[in-house]
């Protein structure tokens, strides 16, 4: 298997199992690789828009749909609480894990909770809309804002 794919899978496996973004050392251990090689792979994965890294180049800010930092979009699956990057990714967490779950988010204007169950067939009806503030062509200009 391609080394970058191996690294990507190790990151996602760690996130799926623990809900937390792994360190370079943890990824290296899972992938059976040297930390220096994993750091280089991080750079390539970020350039290919697979990961978003913090400015230090080694901390994972986003491995979509998972967030490496706390956000207002939480998702409970099998008793674990994950953070998602945005509304889309909040639904992406149960989709990626192929599990049912509960999205715990909020109305961005009033901060009132917007919580709903997500089943294998999709989310339960909940009165809400999702606003896409950024056109698709500009998403990666500032992916954190997007």
């Amino acid at each position: 298997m391609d080394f970058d794919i191996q690294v990507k899978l190790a990151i996602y496996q760690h996130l799926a199992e623990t809900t937390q973004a792994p360190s370079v050392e943890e990824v290296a251990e899972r992938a059976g690789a040297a930390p220096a090689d994993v750091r280089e792979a991080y750079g390539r994965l970020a350039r290919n828009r697979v990961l978003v890294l913090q400015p230090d180049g080694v901390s994972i800010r986003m491995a979509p749909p998972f967030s490496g930092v706390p956000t207002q979009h939480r998702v409970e699956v099998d008793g674990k609480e994950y953070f998602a990057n945005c509304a889309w990714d909040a639904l992406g967490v149960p989709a990626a894990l192929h599990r049912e779950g509960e999205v715990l988010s909020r109305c961005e204007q009033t901060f009132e909770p917007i919580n709903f169950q997500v089943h294998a067939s999709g989310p339960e009806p909940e009165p809400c809309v999702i606003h896409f503030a950024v056109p698709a062509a500009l998403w990666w200009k500032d992916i954190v804002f997007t």
Partner: protein
Amino acid sequence: MLFFRSEERVDEWCQAQGLPRRPLVRLDQLWSLALAWYANRLSPAARRPQPDEMRAIFARVGLTGPFWDPQADVFS
């Protein structure tokens, strides 16, 4: 991409942020997008959709036009 309780709350937020009102997406449409983007994300074969695939995914859930075109140059 943020949740709002209603269109009115979106309008209030956009006004407060000084941002233009952009398209709204329903929860069922968002679920279709989530499946298309992420259902195989944890598999070795996963890859990001290419621009033509993105346009097709958006079109399947009724999202068309320059806003949903990853190669549109009208916004830059």
